[in-house]
């Protein structure tokens, strides 16, 4: 069954509604507790100060979650059951940074009763710097005709 997104008639070049977040040290700490990732580069100011980053940074997966949120809002169940992500973490996100996840439909291919939508995704910081780049692919099952 086609999702609402598929029924809207997506086109290559279209962009998805963006997702914006403010990253704070409190949120980084919460993510450490939720994920079990207590790497001191995220939660220990003294350790982080001596690292290549100079201060604490957000977990890559915390930042990447904004991409999945964007995809879920656009494609709902289809994203949960037939979604793929390929991401590169390019720049650290620091407490106090705001991020915006965006996606642009690059390619739509229909085959065997399904529509595969490929989307270039990026998370940028308020400076415009790319924190994460990559590709998301979601396969939409189309309603059968007849």
């Amino acid at each position, binding site marked *: 069954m086609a999702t609402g997104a598929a029924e809207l008639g997506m086109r290559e070049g279209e962009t998805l509604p963006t997702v914006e977040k403010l990253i704070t040290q409190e949120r980084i700490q919460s993510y450490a507790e939720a*994920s*079990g990732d207590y*790497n*001191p*580069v995220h939660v220990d100011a003294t350790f982080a100060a001596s690292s290549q980053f100079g201060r604490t940074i957000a977990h890559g997966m915390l930042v990447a979650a904004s991409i999945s949120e964007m995809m879920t809002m656009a494609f709902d169940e289809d994203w*949960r059951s037939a979604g793929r992500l390929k991401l590169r973490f390019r720049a650290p996100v620091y407490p106090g940074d705001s991020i915006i996840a965006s996606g642009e439909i690059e390619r739509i291919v229909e085959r065997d009763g399904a529509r595969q939508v490929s989307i270039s995704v990026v998370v940028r910081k308020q400076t415009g710097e790319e924190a994460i780049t990559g590709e998301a692919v979601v396969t939409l099952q189309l309603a059968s005709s007849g």
Partner: protein
Amino acid sequence: MSVNYAELTPGQEISSRTVVLDAATVSRYVEAVEDSSAGPASEIGSGPTPPMAIAALTLRGVLTDLEIPGGTVHAGQELEFKGAVSVGETLACRATLAQNSVRGDWRFMVVRVQAKDSTGRVVMEGKSTIMVPA
């Protein structure tokens, strides 16, 4: 016992754990990432688990069993979500080492992860690239 990363070989199982996606665990995740697509964290019941929550909780076992040291950098992540998973489900999560090499001051490791639900259905697969201080 600390892990000797140099002795880890491709194909070696790193972690095998059970993860229970109880409402409290999923709520904690939803609240941490402020995932609006999941609805209010306080109202997480028996609905779908955010896919990235499955990934994060699967990777938690890797972090623990691989004894990832401070300063490790997460360089890349691939994920494939193969089936919606309800809150309350129990997952069998497994991780194996795919690559292990040293370049300069860093050890590059690629870890494959997989999560299966209680019926044995694969619901998530992925590949994490991490850089560990050599």
